[in-house]
C-alpha cells in the first residue's frame, strides 16, 4: 500500500504542472534566500573576527592591565617593560609561530601647512608583513625595511594630507614623559586595506623609531602572539601567567586570548544576535510563503479528495498521499533552492560583495569607527551546515504546512468535500 501512496503522491505533482511549478518555485526562492542570507552573515562574522585577530589581538595579546582597560584611548605610559626579553622567551615556547611587539600612539601627522591626527603603529616591518599582509595591499611605493625613517600610510589618510610616495611627513607627539617630540619620515608606500578606519587613520613606522618618538626603549604597549593552533589560545594564556607575574615586565601584566577581545568577545556576540534576528525574520517570511502555497494546493483540491474518498480511499491513505506529495514538492524545491542559493553564495565567496561601490565611496568612507572592522568587500561563507540545515528546513516547512489541511480533508465525508466552495 505504501508504494501505491508513493506512486500516487508522485503522480499528483505532475497532474497540474502549473500549480506544481509555482509551488516549487516559491520553495526554491525561499530556500535560496535562506542559504544566501546565512552564508552572508557567516561571512561577516568570520571576516571581522579574522581581521581583528590579524590587526589587533593576535591569538594572545600581552599588555598592562591598565592598557587593557583603557585601550581605546591608548595610554602611552602603560608599557610592558623589557619586552625584547619577554618576546625572546615567548618565541622559545612550543606552538608559538610568531611574536610581534608594538607601540601605538596618537600623533599629529603634518605635511607642509596641513596637519591631521593619526594613529601610529610602531612594529617590526617583517612581522607586519607576515601577520597583517600590508605588503599585499600596497597601491603605490614599496614596502619599508625598517632601517630608515620611513612610513607606510593608508590611502584615505594620504589623500587627506595630499601625500605621495617619497614625500616627507612630520610626526609630532607627546612622549611618555610629557615632552613634545617630533621626527621627520619619508613615505615609503601607500596601502589600501579596504577597512575605512585603517585606511583613514593609520600609519606604520618601524618599531625602533616609534620607540624613539615615545622615549621608551625596550618597551612595548602590546605583544601579539600567533600560535600554530589558535584554539589553544586560552590554554597558552594560562601557561604564560607565571612568566608575566615575575614582576620583571611591569607590575600588572596580563595575557588576553583572542576569544576575550573586546570586538570578538563582546561586540561580535551582540552583532551576531542582531544578525540572528534578521535571519529569524527571513526564516519566518520563507516559512509563511511555503505554508501559504502548500495550504492552498490542498484546500483547492477538496472536491478531488472527495472523489478519491468516494472511490474507497481511506482517511489515513488520503492523509499519507497529501503528506507524500508535500514531501516530494518540498524536496524538489529545497534541492533547487540549495543548488541555486549555494551556487550564488559560492560565486560571491570568490568575487565578494563590494559595499563601497554599492553605497558610494564617500558615504562608505564616513563609517570609520575604530571597533567596526567591516571591510568594504564582504565575502559570504558557505558551509556544509548551512546547505544541510536549509535543505531540511525547506522539506520540514512543506510537510508541516500540509499536516492540518491533510488531516482535515482526510476526515471529510465525500459529500462535504463536494460541497466545498474552494475550486480550481
Amino acid at each position, binding site marked *: 500500500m505504501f508504494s501505491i501512496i508513493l506512486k500516487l503522491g508522485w503522480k499528483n505533482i505532475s497532474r497540474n504542472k502549473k500549480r506544481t511549478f509555482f509551488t516549487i518555485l516559491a520553495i526554491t526562492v525561499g530556500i535560496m534566500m535562506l542559504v544566501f542570507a546565512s552564508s552572508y552573515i557567516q561571512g561577516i562574522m568570520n571576516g571581522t573576527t579574522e581581521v581583528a585577530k590579524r590587526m589587533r589581538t593576535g591569538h594572545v595579546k600581552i599588555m598592562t592591565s591598565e592598557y587593557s582597560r583603557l585601550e581605546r584611548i591608548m595610554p602611552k605610559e602603560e608599557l610592558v617593560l623589557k619586552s625584547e626579553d619577554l618576546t625572546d622567551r615567548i618565541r622559545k615556547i612550543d606552538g608559538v609561530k610568531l611574536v610581534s611587539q608594538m607601540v601605538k600612539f596618537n600623533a*599629529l601627522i*603634518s605635511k607642509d*601647512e*596641513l*596637519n591631521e*591626527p593619526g594613529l601610529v603603529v610602531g612594529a617590526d616591518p617583517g612581522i607586519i608583513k607576515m601577520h597583517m599582509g600590508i605588503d599585499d595591499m600596497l597601491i603605490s611605493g614599496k614596502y619599508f625595511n625598517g632601517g630608515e625613517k620611513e612610513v607606510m600610510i593608508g590611502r584615505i589618510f594620504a589623500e587627506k594630507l595630499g601625500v605621495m610616495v617619497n614625500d616627507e611627513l*612630520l610626526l*609630532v607627539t*607627546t*612622549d611618555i*614623559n*610629557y*615632552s*613634545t*617630540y*617630533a*621626527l*621627520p619620515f619619508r613615505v615609503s608606500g601607500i596601502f589600501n586595506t579596504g577597512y575605512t578606519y585603517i585606511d583613514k587613520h593609520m600609519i606604520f613606522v618601524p618599531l625602533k623609531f616609534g620607540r624613539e618618538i615615545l*622615549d621608551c626603549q625596550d618597551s612595548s604597549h602590546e605583544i601579539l602572539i600567533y600560535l600554530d593552533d589558535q584554539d589553544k589560545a586560552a590554554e597558552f594564556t594560562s601557561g604564560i601567567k607565571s612568566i608575566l607575574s615575575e614582576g620583571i615586565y611591569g607590575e600588572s601584566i596580563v595575557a588576553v586570548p583572542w576569544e576575550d577581545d573586546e570586538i570578538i568577545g563582546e561586540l561580535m556576540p551582540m552583532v551576531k544576535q542582531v544578525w540572528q534576528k534578521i535571519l529569524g525574520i527571513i526564516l519566518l517570511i520563507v516559512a509563511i510563503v511555503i505554508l501559504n502555497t502548500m495550504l492552498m494546493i490542498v484546500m483547492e483540491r477538496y472536491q478531488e479528495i472527495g472523489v478519491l474518498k468516494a472511490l474507497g480511499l481511506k482517511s489515513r491513505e488520503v492523509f499519507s498521499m497529501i503528506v507524500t506529495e508535500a514531501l516530494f514538492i518540498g524536496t524538489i524545491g529545497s534541492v533547487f533552492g540549495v543548488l541555486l542559493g549555494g551556487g550564488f553564495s559560492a560565486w560571491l565567496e570568490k568575487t565578494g560583495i563590494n559595499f563601497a561601490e554599492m553605497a558610494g565611496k564617500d558615504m562608505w568612507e564616513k563609517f570609520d569607527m575604530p571597533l567596526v572592522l567591516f571591510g568594504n568587500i564582504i565575502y559570504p561563507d558557505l558551509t556544509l551546515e548551512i546547505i544541510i540545515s536549509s535543505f531540511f528546513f525547506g522539506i520540514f516547512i512543506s510537510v508541516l504546512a500540509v499536516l492540518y489541511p491533510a488531516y482535515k480533508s482526510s476526515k471529510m465525508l465525500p459529500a462535504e468535500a463536494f460541497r466545498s466552495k474552494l475550486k480550481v
Partner: protein
Amino acid sequence: MKKIKIILVLIFILLVPKVAAEDIDPFDILSKIDSNMTFESAYAEMKMIITIKKRKITKKFKSYSVGNTKSFIEFLSPVRDRGTKMLKKGKIIKIYYPSAERILRLSGHMLRQSMMGSDMSYEDMTERSKELREEYSGEMFQNEVLDENECYVLMLTSKIKKQTYFKRKIWVDIKRFVGVKEELYSKSGKLVKVSKVIEIKLFKNRYYPVEMIMEDKLRKNSSTRIIVEKIEFNIAIPEDMFSERALLK
C-alpha cells in the same frame, strides 16, 4: 512709617550692588584686565609643573613678548624639550622641534591639543578680550568674595555653536583688576577646565599674576602650575626675535 523706612533702606542696600554690577559691560572689564596686564614688552623666566596622577614633571622656559600679540618661548628643560621654540604672532603659532629640525605651523584641531603636555591648550594661549567680545555674549552675576577678595563674576556664553568653551565663568578681583579664576564649560554644561591665580604681585603700579594653576578636567588627576620666577618689563627686544629665523637659531 518707621518700619516702611527701614524696609526701603534694606531694599536700597540689597539692590544697589546688584544694579551696579548689572550696569557694567563684562567685556569692558575684560578689556581693562588685558590693558592692565599688557606691557610694552616683557621678558620672563618661568617654570611649569605638570602633575599627572603621582607624577610631577617640571619644565623651564623663557619668554619674550611685545604687547599681547607677539611672543617667543624657548624651553630650557627637560632634555627632550630643550631647544623647542614657540613663536606666537596673533592667532598664528609656529613651533620649532630640534629633534626634527623642522618648524610646524599649528592649525585647526591641533590648536586644541595640550601645549607641551600641560593642561593648557595652544588655543588657550591665543585668546584675547577683543575676540571674546565678538564671539560671546556676556552677563554680570552678583559679586562674590573669593579668597577674601571681592570679585566681579562674569558669565560669557558663546554665540558660535562649535566653540571649544561654550560658557566661561570668570571672577575678576575688583581692586586689582586681575582675572583670578575661570571655569570653562562645554556646550553640554560639563566643566572642562578650571584655572586659578595663586599669587599676584605688584609691578610698577600694576598687578600681575605670578603663579597660577590650571586643571583640565578631561584628564584624570591632572593639573599644571605655572610659576613666574623672574620677570622684567619694558625691555628692548629686537624685532627679529619674532621671526622664523629666530626659531631656527
